[in-house]
Each structure stands twice: as structure tokens, then as C-alpha cells.
């Protein structure tokens, strides 16, 4: 399969995102017809026409806008973090929670919900838990110097995730089955239904801060994919570069997970599809992953709130959409491009 020329994937990626944005704003419990949507946008941004009905404004700007923004941001950074981890660990099957960030955030959030803390505090503990889990994994990797550092990182990540997962299970067992357990379960499955604009004011800067090093170092990320010895022989200071990228990708993922819960598959599937479209060079893979990830999660979230009379957990939908996509990509890429 040939990769797309630059203009083609840019045009395609941005058109897809724009289409998803229009769709996300128009559908839902309070449908807004395309004409009314354009009118409302025109009035809001440029003051064109009459003031739209208050119900339309409330639905669009107070209910849908924070959710749409959150979906775009989180989908984009989870995909970027996934692409970075895949390049770093020289393995296209790695997802952004390989180092235990989801398990750590999950345990933090479960603990917060178990203790009945306010939502903002729950998010804070989840964020700290995610960073703490990865910190622990990196500490183990730094202490164990006898083996290949990448292998130790991945194995320590698996082990720490399993340990924290057991902690989550314990909390679920101890939680009140009528009040606390559903909220813990729902959080662990991920969702954007509770996102308000104030959450974004806290989370968005963290997401962008984590994204910045990935953008700045986008070419060097390729070199880590060659393996440590080769990268060093080419003049790369591998260890500081890897720690920087891990810190950045972890910040992104922890911030995303603390806001939206555990949303699987995005960070694994989207970089795969992006790689098929634009090739493996991280300079193109990163923007393509950002664009596709935003569209993917926006589409999944739009489905989550429209598919059934009740809100579906986002993590379930990303798995339902992501896994078939992943298998399709796997089947298609069997003959290496």
C-alpha cells in the first residue's frame, strides 16, 4: 500500500475532523439541524443574524462544546502518546498505558470514589496515581541495570499494572454495591459525560504541556526506534531522550485518563492506521496520529451518547470500534507495504 502525499492526508484528515465536529454538534438528545447549527455558529463567532433560541445555545455551547473539546484533545494526545511509545519501544503493539499509567490512575480514582471525595479531588488522585505508577516502573527499571532497559521497563510495567489492578479489584469488592461500585465501574470504563468547561481549563494545559516535547523532538523519536546501540552509535544521547519522552507521554496519558477514565485502544489503533497512511517517519506520523485520534474519539463519543437511550461507556465503544479496525489493519498489512 502506497502512503499518501502530504497534501492528500492533510486535506483528508482535516476534512474528516471538520465533518466529525459538525456531526457531533448536531446530533444528540436535542438535535440541531445543520442550518440551525451554522446559524448558531455564525451568531456566536461573528454576530451574524438573530440570536438563536436559548435551548439551542445551551445544548451547543454548555453541553456539547466541553465534551467535543475533551474528545478532540484526549483522542489526539492518547494517539500521540501511543505513537511515541510504539516508536520508543520498537514495537507497534504497544499502547500508551504500557508503563502502568491507566492502572495507577484507575486505582487512584477508585480510591477517591471509595472515600466519597469530590470529583475534582478524584481526578487529582487519579492523575497522581498515573504518574506514581509510571514513576515506580521507571525506578525499578533504573535500579535493574543488568538487562536490556526497554525490556525491563515493559516487564516492570506489566507487573506494576497487575499489582495495581489487584488493588482496584479489592476496592471494588469493598465498595458499597449500590452507590460506590457503579461509579467506580463507570469511571473505569471511561466516558466524557461528566466533563465541564472548568475541567478542561485544568487538563488542557497539562495535555498540551505533555505534547510539546513530542512535537519538538519528533525527528529524534525515530532514532530510538533503531535500538539503543545503533542510536548511540549515530550520536544520540539515548537515556535522557527516552526519559524525556516517557515523562511527556505519561503526562499526556495521565491527564487524559484522570479526566475521562480508561479509554483503551485509541492509542494503539490510531497510530497503526496513521502509519499505513503516511509512513513510519515520526515527523509525519505524529501530526497524522493527532488528527486521526481526534476524529476517532469524537466519533466514538458521538456514538456513545446517541446509539442507545442511555449513555454508553466510551471505553466499551472504543474497543468495539478499535478492535475490528485493528484486526483489519493487521490483515491488510500482512503483505508488508
Amino acid at each position, binding site marked *: 500500500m502506497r502512503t499518501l502525499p502530504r497534501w492528500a492526508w492533510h486535506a483528508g484528515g482535516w476534512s474528516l475532523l471538520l465533518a466529525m465536529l459538525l456531526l457531533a454538534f448536531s446530533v444528540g438528545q436535542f438535535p440541531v439541524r445543520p442550518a440551525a447549527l451554522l446559524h448558531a455558529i455564525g451568531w456566536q463567532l461573528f454576530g451574524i443574524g438573530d440570536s438563536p433560541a436559548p435551548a439551542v445555545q445551551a445544548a451547543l455551547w454548555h453541553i456539547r462544546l466541553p465534551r467535543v473539546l475533551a474528545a478532540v484533545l484526549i483522542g489526539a494526545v492518547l494517539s500521540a502518546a501511543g505513537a511515541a511509545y510504539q516508536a520508543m519501544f*520498537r514495537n507497534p503493539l504497544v499502547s500508551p498505558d504500557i508503563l502502568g499509567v491507566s492502572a495507577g490512575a484507575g486505582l487512584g480514582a477508585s480510591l477517591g470514589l471509595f472515600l466519597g471525595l469530590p470529583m475534582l479531588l478524584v481526578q487529582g488522585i487519579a492523575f497522581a496515581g498515573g504518574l506514581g505508577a509510571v514513576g515506580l516502573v521507571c525506578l525499578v527499571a533504573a535500579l535493574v541495570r543488568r538487562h536490556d532497559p526497554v525490556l525491563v521497563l515493559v516487564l516492570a510495567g506489566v507487573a506494576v499494572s497487575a499489582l495495581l489492578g489487584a488493588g482496584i479489584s479489592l476496592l471494588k469488592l469493598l465498595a458499597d454495591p449500590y452507590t460506590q461500585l457503579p461509579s467506580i465501574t463507570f469511571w473505569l470504563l471511561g466516558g466524557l459525560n461528566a466533563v465541564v468547561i472548568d475541567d478542561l481549563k485544568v487538563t488542557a494545559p497539562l495535555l498540551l504541556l505533555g505534547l510539546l516535547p513530542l512535537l519538538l523532538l519528533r525527528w529524534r523519536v*525515530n532514532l530510538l526506534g*533503531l535500538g539503543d546501540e545503533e542510536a548511540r*552509535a549515530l550520536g544520540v*544521547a539515548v537515556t535522557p531522550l527516552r526519559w524525556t519522552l516517557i515523562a511527556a507521554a505519561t503526562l499526556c496519558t495521565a491527564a487524559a485518563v484522570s479526566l475521562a477514565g480508561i479509554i483503551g485502544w485509541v492509542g494503539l489503533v490510531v497510530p497503526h492506521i496513521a502509519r499505513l497512511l503516511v509512513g513510519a517517519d515520526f515527523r509525519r506520523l505524529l501530526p497524522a496520529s493527532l488528527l486521526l485520534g481526534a476524529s476517532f474519539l469524537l466519533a466514538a463519543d458521538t456514538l456513545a451518547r446517541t446509539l442507545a437511550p442511555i449513555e454508553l461507556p466510551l471505553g466499551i465503544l472504543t474497543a468495539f470500534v478499535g478492535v475490528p479496525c485493528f484486526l483489519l489493519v493487521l490483515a491488510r498489512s500482512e503483505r508488508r*507495504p
Partner: protein
Amino acid sequence: MSGNTPLLEARELVIGHAGVALGAPFALSVHPGEVLCLLGPNGCGKTTLFRTLLGLLPAVRGEVDLQGTPLRVHDRAAIARRIGYVPQASPMPFAWRVREVVAMGRAAHLGLLATPGRADEAIAGECLRELGLHAFAERTVTTLSGGERQLVLIARALAQQAHLLVMDEPTASLDFGNQLRILDTVRRLADTGIGVLLSTHQPQHALQVADRIALMAAGSLQALGPAREIATPERLATLYGVDAARVAAALPASGSST
């Protein structure tokens, strides 16, 4: 070209892991325009020696100089500007394009946040042309054969614009035609003034391409000198622990190889 400051000079060098010596001290130097070939049985320390010379592994004792300055004063990028490294061609995990892989050789010349610019792309293109790979520039590396991949790695090392190339068994697992192609490339590069240090398991390859040959055993150099004086059946027989008559039968008659 030779006779000037050596590109690489090791004195009283003891190689090993974690401070544990692998063998006795030895000396080694590579001069501009020469091919120095390293022969030795499996596990004799060829890769450990290369890693030490590249600064990837600390020497147990002794000194390594690059163009007259000690290796240890250089950071990674400075070493990479002085030694181009050609690893054994292992499959790559991602389907990069050939020109992208060759441009990675420019890392040591670029700032931390920089990406290869027009000049770097031009150098990468030049290196591809040098090796007759210009038609491959847009191919993905995962579609290349072993020989093509090895040539791409040599092109990447050339893009480092170092005067010394270190090649780890560049002819291993290649077919006969590709082996000859690689050896001719090595000779041609040396004739442009580049110094080449390479390891091989094939004495006949060493005789074909090398100016000097070093015999390595038990973590140290046993002999180092002009190719034909060193790679004699008797010495090779001792080195590899086989019968001298058997070695003589396997090698081309002295002086007849090109």
C-alpha cells in the same frame, strides 16, 4: 594518505565487561585509506572491541584516541562525527523509507530539536548515489533484501561524514553476489581516503579487501600486519583450531586472488 595522524589509535587496550578483562593488552590503529580486517573465532571479543572503540563500552584499561584526541573527552555526537558505524543488518521494526533511514545518519550533525534540512537531505542523497541506491530512495526498508539493507546501512554511516567506518561483519548472511558487492564498496570507499575497520568470518574476504589483517583470540589481538603475512594457513589454523592443510585447501592459492 597514510602516515599522518591515525584515525583511530588504541594503546595498551584491555577490553572487557564491567571492569573484568577479557584478555591481554594490545595496540591497534587505523589510518586513512586503509582497510583493516579483524578475523577471529566466535566469542573472541570482536563485538566487545568494536563497542569499546565506539565508546559504547568503557575500556578496562588503556587509551583510545580518535584523530589524536582521547575518546573519553568526546560526547556521543562528537564520536559519531568521527566514526561511522555499520551494524549487522537486522530487520527494522518500522517501514521507514530508505532516504529517511539514511538521513538518520545526520543526527550527530544536528541540534537536539533540529530536523534534517535541505542540506542534510542532499548529503543523504549523495550517499545513496555513492552506493548505487538512488533508485531505492522511496522504497520502504522492510521491502529490501538483506544485501540492499546492508548497503543502506553503509549509506547511513557515510551520511555521518566520518573519516572512519567500523563495520560489524558486513558480509554475514549475504549471498555470493552481495558479498562481492559489499567488498568492492569497502575497497572503493577506502580508495577515497576513508579508513575502514571491519570484522569477518571469511579469511578469503579479508585477503581480497584488506591492507592489514588483525587476528583476534581470547579478547586480545594475537597478530597484526600486512594481509598476506598474517592470513597464512598456519596462523589461521591455530586461530580457528583446525588442521593447516585443511585451511590451505580452503583458501585461494597465494597471490592469485584479486
